[in-house]
């Protein structure tokens, strides 16, 4: 089930469908894996934030929206890819214009910052067969941290 792109086409249920996929990976997880369960949960968190973003904000100019999720273990973590056939989004400009969370205990607008905090080598690019691709790596022993102001 790892190293395989899993596709989802129902945007109404996609969040639950993606979590169903991660639940199956969790149920199959063993200590022999080259990554910790927390690494998998961190990847799941980042994928959730991106898929939620797609469901709420993405524009699909095609008749059949499609989102694919692939997780590939390596010796030191998990490589994650989320592909979609939406029209795309300027993630780099957004993160450059909003480099950090400035509000105290923000009630919204944290999602992309969560992804950025969870992910190493975050890339948003054209997918090999068209459409968009979000790719990132979650290290096996990384201590992800998002700087939120509490006062």
């Amino acid at each position, binding site marked *: 089930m790892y190293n395989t792109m899993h596709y989802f086409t129902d945007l109404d249920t996609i*969040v639950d469908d993606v*979590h169903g996929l991660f*639940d199956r990976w969790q149920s199959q997880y063993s200590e022999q894996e080259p990554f910790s*369960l*927390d690494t998998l*949960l*961190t990847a*799941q*968190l980042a994928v*959730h*934030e991106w898929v*939620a973003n797609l469901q*709420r904000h993405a524009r699909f100019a095609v008749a059949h929206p499609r989102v694919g999720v692939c997780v590939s273990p390596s010796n030191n973590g998990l490589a994650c890819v989320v592909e979609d056939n939406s029209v795309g989004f300027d993630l780099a400009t957004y993160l450059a214009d909003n480099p950090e969370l400035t509000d105290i*205990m*923000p*009630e*919204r607008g*944290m*999602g992309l*910052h*969560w992804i950025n*905090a*969870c992910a190493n080598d975050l890339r948003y690019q054209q997918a090999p067969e068209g459409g968009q691709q979000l790719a990132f790596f979650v290290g096996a022993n990384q*201590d*992800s*941290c*998002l700087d*939120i102001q*509490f006062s």
Partner: protein
Amino acid sequence: MSFKIEPHDQDTAVVTVGKTLDFRNAEAFKTACQEHVDAGKHNFILDFTDTGILDSTGLGSIFSLYRKVSPLNGQVVFASISRPVQVVVQLTRTYKVFRQFPTVEDALEALQQGIPSHR
């Protein structure tokens, strides 16, 4: 809706968060909590047993609740934190703001003893 809020005493409500607190039910969570604040509750225990999803919007709704009860000397505390929620707590360092307890009963005892929220 997933979550359930039950009054415990005149000051305290216990929120069984359920499987999910995310962008899909965060507004309903805020509205429901406001009703209990309006009814006089200023301490909220969030029971995260079996919670599989706490996303950024869900956490934002918890921040909103905190804003409402803090001026009333109230507290928002976490109990029975599931592993996915612990990942969120570590990522966001919200243990600096929300005390954590192994069980709802431990949280109730701490609130009844008047233990302050900040270390």
